[in-house]
């Protein structure tokens, strides 16, 4: 790790001030991603601003039924929160499907949002990577692409955003609240992460000096669930994951939310599929067609061509399970 200065501010104003005056500074949450990347020499901040002392570690009910989640709430705490478990099961399930219990105890909501890709070529300094070094090229293209994206990719970068939690947040229409010396902004989660285009090193709409302070959830939607498919039964990143909420009335889709993980550079809200499903019949055939429409623009490589079929199967299965769950309830 490159040597750095360490500060631990006690309030938010102090924290944003600390990064505003220090261009090479980075916030530190649970450290489960940043410490790893610093050790690998991929992140090299001059100053590390530890935000875990900030009073942003609570979950509040919002008037009108939503939930406000402090940026420093630990992933495990959020997953176990009674309101989350009952009203937003998709979120609880998504968090529990990610990483390990130890890592979830450390990881924060803010850090989870900003965790970086697990592309092996990004991680290996011996490889060319546009995300690490703009203009260097992308060794993943033509290499191992099992973990890579098929939607929203560019010729510059095909990396996925690895978070499970964010896929659920995308489906839930979450809003991210950020703070800097310039004030507070609110960014819908679906606009928080950006596609690579020809600037894959730009991953979000967050400015370098902005601190994530909270994530807000609107009132809970229909019954929801998260399904993650991976290369082992636990403790592995998603090949494909699906966050879905579905309400069926008289065999017709009355409300639907669908987001995908493991297939795109950002948590992928499947708007096209939702549009096709809404108001239509809640049948497997309809689910499949909607999935196909969503996946039609996919750009696959030999190593990840299977993901279209897998995503379609997982979307269909998840929606089917939601129907069964709805009937049982």
């Amino acid at each position: 790790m490159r040597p750095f200065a360490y500060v631990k501010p006690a309030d938010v104003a102090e924290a944003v001030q600390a990064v505003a005056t220090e261009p090479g500074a980075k916030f530190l949450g649970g450290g489960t991603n940043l410490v790893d990347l610093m050790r690998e020499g991929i992140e090299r901040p001059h100053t590390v601003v530890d935000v875990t002392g900030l009073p942003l570690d609570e979950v509040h009910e919002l008037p009108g039924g939503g939930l406000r989640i402090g940026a420093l709430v630990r992933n495990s705490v959020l997953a176990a929160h009674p309101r989350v478990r009952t009203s937003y099961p998709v979120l609880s399930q998504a968090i529990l499907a990610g990483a390990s219990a130890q890592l979830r105890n450390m990881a924060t909501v803010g850090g989870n949002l900003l965790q970086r890709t697990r592309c092996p070529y990004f991680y290996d300094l011996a490889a060319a990577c546009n995300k690490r070094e703009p203009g260097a090229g992308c060794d993943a293209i033509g290499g191992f692409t099992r973990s890579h994206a098929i939607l929203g990719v560019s010729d510059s970068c095909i990396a996925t955003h690895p978070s499970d939690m964010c896929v659920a947040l995308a489906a839930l229409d979450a809003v991210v609240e950020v703070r800097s010396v310039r004030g507070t902004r609110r960014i819908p989660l679906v606009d928080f992460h950006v596609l690579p285009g020809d600037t894959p090193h730009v991953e979000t709409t967050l400015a370098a000096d902005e601190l994530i302070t909270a994530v807000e959830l609107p009132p809970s939607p229909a019954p929801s669930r998260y399904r993650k498919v991976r290369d082992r039964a636990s403790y592995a990143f998603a090949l494909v994951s699906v966050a879905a909420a579905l309400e069926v009335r008289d065999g017709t889709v009355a409300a639907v939310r669908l987001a995908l993980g493991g297939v795109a550079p950002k948590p992928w809200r499947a708007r096209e599929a939702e549009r096709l499903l809404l108001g239509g019949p809640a049948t497997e055939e309809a689910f499949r067609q909607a999935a196909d429409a969503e996946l039609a623009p996919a750009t696959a490589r030999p190593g990840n061509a299977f993901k279209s079929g897998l995503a379609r199967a997982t979307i269909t299965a998840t929606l089917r399970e939601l129907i069964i769950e709805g009937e049982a309830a």
Partner: protein
Amino acid sequence: MRVNGTDEKLDVEPWVSLLDALRERLGVTGPKKGCDQGACGACTVLADGVRINACLALAVQYADKEITTIEGVTPHPLQEAFVRHDGFQCGYCTSGQICSAIGMLNEAEDPAALTDAEIRERMSGNLCRCGAYNGIVEAIKEVAR
């Protein structure tokens, strides 16, 4: 920092991990380094009773926490149960498995009601390359009940 019940004066640079601080500065070598990347669980310790991976923790970040390693949990019924059920072979993952199991039992609402499948899922952050998984689950079950 409090380590296993004693106050330790630790003067480490901010880039020293909790794991290296324990192993290389304090000589507390019970927690193991299997990957240094959060990917194996061998370094699992308890911070204020909560299981974490010490390899991804900066020591400075835990200055005001109570750290408990395998040395600090001794004697614990899980240790004997691990021996009885042969929940290890080479022993390298064992400190982490036991600390993780203690943290896991703290997390569970009703430890005695955990099914085998639930224990396995909750313990999946601790790899055992020797494949002693069956014995580990048996040992945990016995102590949970």
